[in-house]
């Protein structure tokens, strides 16, 4: 953790925090001493190349894998290794890598599954309406099988589905992956819109330029270790960063 990071909104309790988290798959160490703090209303990105451990970080947060060391905290409470459904119940949602919609179900059913655990029917209906207002294209496709949508539309449904849970913190795993450049722009525009709704967002990306251009802060992951962190603007101007990740050799 760098000094300025420590100072950042000092004393405030993070919505989501990783404390000295290490994760192994069997004997293979994938994450080593990862520390991340995400404050309310912030948009934070985790940058890293292929196989650097980005997805594993999210899976550790959601309890798909248990860390071998360290803790995950949600609103200051230790939630390390709880079953996924309990983390979801406590307000963590994710837009998974490659969207992973239920492609045999309709778009409407996908959205409803996003709000599966919710009991507050009125608020749920309002949130659904908000999602459909944010993504008018999704409204037009409600009765269609999700598998028949285009990649960009699927990404909107995946985000809508995650928003239906009214999450405390929204995780996104490489939302730009596998999309044409035009669509990548669109997706980041959508993320900006979601941010405008006041959501706390933790997005994992390889596309460092794009991610930093809309995030407040960023962390850089390299073979399972955080090697850099700081304000998005600083990272964009960091010489090491420019050299290693922003394609300036």
């Amino acid at each position, binding site marked *: 953790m760098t000094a300025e990071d420590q100072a950042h909104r000092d004393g405030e309790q993070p919505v989501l925090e990783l404390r000295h988290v290490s994760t192994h798959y069997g004997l293979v160490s994938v994450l080593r001493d990862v520390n991340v703090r995400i404050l309310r209303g912030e948009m934070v990105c985790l940058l890293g190349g292929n196989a650097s451990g980005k997805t594993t970080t999210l899976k550790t947060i*959601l309890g*798909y894998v248990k860390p071998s060391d360290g803790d995950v905290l949600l609103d200051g409470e230790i939630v390390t290794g709880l*079953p*996924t*459904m309990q983390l*979801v*119940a406590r307000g963590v*949602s*994710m837009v*998974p890598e490659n969207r*992973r919609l*239920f*492609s*045999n*179900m309709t778009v409407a*059913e996908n959205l*409803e*599954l*996003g709000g*599966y*655990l919710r009991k507050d029917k009125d608020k749920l209906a309002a949130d659904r309406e908000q999602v459909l207002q944010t993504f008018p294209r999704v409204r037009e496709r409600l009765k269609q099988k999700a598998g028949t949508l285009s990649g960009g539309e699927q990404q909107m449904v995946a985000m809508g*589905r995650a928003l239906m*849970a009214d999450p405390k913190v929204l995780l996104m795993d490489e939302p730009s992956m596998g999309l044409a450049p035009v669509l990548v722009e669109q997706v980041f525009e959508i993320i900006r819109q979601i941010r405008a709704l006041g959501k706390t967002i933790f997005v994992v990306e390889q596309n460092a330029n794009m991610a930093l251009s809309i995030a407040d802060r960023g962390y850089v992951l390299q073979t399972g270790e955080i090697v850099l962190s700081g304000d998005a603007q600083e990272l964009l101007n960091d010489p090491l960063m420019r050299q290693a990740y922003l394609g300036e050799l």
Partner: protein
Amino acid sequence: MAEGTDLQPAPSPATARLGRLQRLPLRRLIQIVLAILIIGFVVLGTYKTLNLPPDERYDPSTWKAFVISGVAQGGIYALIALGYTLVYGVLRMINFAHGEVFMMGCFASFFFADAYASSGLLNRHPFYALAIIFAIAMLTSCLIAMLLERVAYRPLRNSPRLVPLITAIGASLFLQNTAFGLFGPQTQAYPVPDVLGGDRTWTILGITMQRIQVVVIVTAVVAVIGLTLFISRTRTGRSIRAVAEDREIASLMGIDVDRTIMITFALGGLLAGVAGVQFGLTFGQVSPYIGFTPGIAAFTASVLGGIGSIGGAALGGLLLGLLQAVGPPLLFTGFNIPAPFQLQDVITFSVLVLVLIFRPGGILGSGEAEKV
């Protein structure tokens, strides 16, 4: 099924292309020859049967009876087949102990039916007695299916696919031998209320049917419709479909995957229980071995319709029931075979093998359509 045949390492793209060039025509050729042989046999058998001297021929009303009994038998198969298909849908596993789940339901209801028969309740209040008998069978099969899931399959959830399969066969033998030990090996008479007695008929829409057949067909239709509505309309049904499609993402929605899988087994058990009573009433008997043949037949039916598909299981059951009832007299009597109806199981296995050769996805399944 298609995935499970993948025993060889994937060849490199270049050899794969070459291999396909060489292999495809040969496989096609075998399929075509096989198809011609089968069609030839079916045409010949049918021709010979229909051209028997009049005194050896079946009359039209007998054919009608064959068809109706085929539909009724198909209803029983469909209900068992739904259990295979549901479990396959969520776990991609064939629950080979499902035939025994069915047998146990039949047995449990037998004890009640037997007691009601000797106390006279069965004939005094056949409707209430039958309602209780159905409930007991459904409850028993449901509990055994849930127990199987919890004890035998859940601990193996993340093992290689072969492991739960072997366990399923073990569980099947376990249940069969348990019934053998507790209830004895002998075949016992399953009591049938007089109102449903063998020669009593109802005429519906101009078709005269044995009353038992009417009961079987009606309960089967109600059960299939009920299940379809449950799966497509309810929140739990939706969670079952979600788990079937993507377990990891289902849990990301907050769905309790373990609970959902258990509910799926429970549903399969309920339907197997219904089938158990239908079987008892239709054949008037029960023994520890009754699970085997209907189990294999229903498994065949689910593969025929497209395993993983609910509509497919119902359709496959119906088709297989019809094939078994109409096939032997139509195809074999012309050849003067002494006991054509003993060849029912030959038909079952032929259908299974042929589906796997010609259309491994089944009738309704190209793989994806309407997976549970």
